[in-house]
């Protein structure tokens, strides 16, 4: 089966190649990527990084590249649920991986800051990105990154110049839709933060049932010296959607990155975050939440590479699983030989709300340096019945008590969200996932 799917994607590349515009170097890059994809094939459960997730449902769906899809007819009103209320943001909207200027909203930016469609930059400055694109996210060892590199039509290009602070959050909204044919989109984002710059970036991936879609997104981030990035990924795909998202972050000296990864939607969603400290003094917070129900699968893979000394990483992922859903936390921290004075903390906590829900949690530390402070922890449990009784003994009914305690389980993660409208939205999303959670009303 995997072989068929692979051959299909390779054949589709051959037929779509002529329409995948771009400078000569990019065409070469795409060719090399599809070649590499053909050699790698789709990962199987024999692959260490994929051992808990069966990709068969994704591979047996005949997705067509978005470039062959028809116009979508998405109107602004349909995007309303995916926005952040009163929050003022520059908003770039992509429909099936293509920039949609009429749905986007650009606000004034500091001088030199660019938040634009990647395809536009590649057209306007064909040589400008050759030394930046595909430098963090390597197609050489990742099938999905290779596919994205071969097929991407567009995505966001964010460039924040040296010592520039962009106060307002930047919202990159990727919606997937399909009418008659299942559509595969491969959005590609490139984020470059200059030395001492600062930005807040939100990526939302969303869609509407019953559309069958596959989004294979790649985001590359280069965080310059002493830059500060607050990044949010809100994965809110529809119940029929497949999502694979790979984010790669390279951190320079003294840079500070916080990555919030919220995986709420999709039939099958894989979210990978790969980070590399390439100079000392960097700090990283990975703050993740996955919530699944029904037959959803959420696979979270993180890799934190401490390749430089005196960097700090703090990772906290929480999973809440209901129904017959499956969750994976596969965390990997590497501390290389010269990365002395590393501090790495990795925690994964999971709450199972039903007997049929299941989670695989494998935190991992590989330490080659000797002067480090590292620890990891993983828990899988159910709601504390003493706590349920405590709430009930005060007049709160059992169902509400369970909802309150479930919500409370997520608050560690929610409280790390610094931007209030995003936090409120996340609150609402979590509460709406509880069967009668909306009735809980205000924030706990």
């Amino acid at each position, binding site marked *: 089966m995997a072989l068929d799917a692979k051959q299909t994607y390779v054949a589709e590349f051959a037929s779509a190649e002529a329409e995948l515009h771009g400078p000569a170097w990019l065409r070469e890059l795409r060719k090399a990527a599809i070649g590499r994809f053909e050699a790698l094939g789709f990962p199987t459960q024999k692959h260490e990084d994929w051992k808990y997730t069966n990709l068969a449902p994704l591979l047996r769906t005949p997705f067509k590249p978005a470039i062959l899809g028809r116009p979508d007819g998405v109107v602004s009103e349909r995007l309303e649920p995916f926005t952040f209320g009163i929050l003022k943001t520059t908003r770039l909207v992509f429909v099936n991986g293509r920039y949609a200027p009429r749905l986007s909203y650009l606000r004034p930016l500091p001088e030199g800051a660019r938040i634009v469609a990647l395809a536009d930059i590649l057209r306007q400055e064909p040589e400008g990105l050759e030394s930046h694109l595909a430098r963090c996210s390597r197609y050489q060892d990742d099938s999905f990154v290779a596919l994205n590199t071969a097929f991407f039509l567009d995505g966001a290009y964010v460039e924040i110049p040296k010592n520039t602070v962009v106060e307002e959050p930047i919202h990159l909204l990727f919606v997937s839709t399909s009418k008659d044919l299942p559509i595969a989109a491969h959005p590609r984002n490139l984020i470059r933060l200059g030395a001492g710059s600062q930005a807040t970036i939100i990526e939302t991936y969303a869609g509407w049932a019953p559309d069958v879609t596959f989004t294979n997104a790649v985001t590359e981030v280069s965080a310059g010296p002493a830059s500060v990035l607050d990044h949010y990924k809100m994965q809110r795909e529809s119940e029929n959607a497949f999502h694979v998202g790979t984010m790669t972050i390279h951190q320079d000296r003294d840079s500070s990155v916080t990555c919030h990864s919220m995986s709420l939607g999709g039939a099958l969603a894989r979210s990978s975050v790969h980070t590399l400290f390439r100079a000392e003094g960097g700090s990283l917070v990975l703050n993740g939440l996955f919530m699944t129900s029904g037959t959803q699968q959420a696979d979270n893979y993180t890799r934190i590479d401490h390749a430089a000394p005196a960097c700090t990483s703090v990772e906290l992922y929480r999973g809440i699983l209901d129904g017959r859903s499956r969750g994976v936390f596969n965390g990997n921290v590497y501390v290389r030989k010269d990365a002395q004075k590393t501090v790495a903390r990795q925690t994964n906590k999971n709450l199972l709300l039903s007997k049929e829900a299941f989670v695989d949690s494998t935190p991992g530390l590989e330490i080659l340096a000797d002067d480090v402070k590292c620890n990891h922890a993983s828990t899988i449990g159910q709601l*504390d019945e*003493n*706590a349920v*009784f*405590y*709430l*009930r*003994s*005060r*007049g*709160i*009914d*059992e169902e*509400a*008590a369970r909802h*309150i*305690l479930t*919500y*409370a*389980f*997520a*608050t*560690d993660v929610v409280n790390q969200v610094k931007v209030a409208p995003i936090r409120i939205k996340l609150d609402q999303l979590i509460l709406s996932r509880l069967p009668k959670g909306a009735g*809980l009303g*205000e*924030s*706990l």
Partner: protein
Amino acid sequence: MLEISNLQVKVAGKEILKGIDLSIKPGEVHAVMGPNGSGKTTLAQVLAGRVTYEVTGGSVQFEGKNLLAMRPEDRAREGVFMAFQYPVEIPGVSNAYFLKAALNAIRKYRGLDEIDAMDFMALVQDKAKLLALDETFMKRGLNEGFSGGEKKKNEIFQMAVLEPKLCILDETDSGLDIDAMRLVANGINTMRSPKRAMLVVTHYQRLLDYVVPDFVHVLVDGRFVKSGGADLARNLETHGYGWILEEVPRPQAARP
């Protein structure tokens, strides 16, 4: 208000309460004292509705209704409140949210509207003063990181806000320093009223110096072996439980 007759309870297959009879009228304060393992906490918990306790016989009527048939939340809504010996810590749920949810659940059951946010704030500030709780308290996670004394104060604070008809205090005095004891006792005494009854379960006389009971019952091995007035508690403090155990011979175990 509360009529307990011949109540028998098992925990994990073991008989703990072996036939309790107790009648409590509005306005009365009853103390249940007894050595460790006598069944005091079981009595409190079974009245509050803990499911791990298996009632094997007898009945409990609360204001003429079958209390044992009610869910824990309905007991609370009817006006039964138990102050826990070991209050549960629930990070992520603020004291304010919790208390408002509880108050509104009770109000709804009684056909009242949800409390207005301003009225709620005024109410909790008023009651917080009673127990000298500071302002940050309401925003903190429910009992999260609270000291033993703070947890007990929080129980009495909740009781003051929810205004139950029957207050069951399970070892509320354990782990309190003298200042906390005075605040907690004052909170309890403030709530004494002709319409409200209290059942104070305790190992020690200490709390009863402040909250003077109308009746004292001594629980030994799952049975009340002696009842009396406040003097009985003082006697127990002075002489321990030994004299009662001698005075009331244990029933002989049935021989096969």
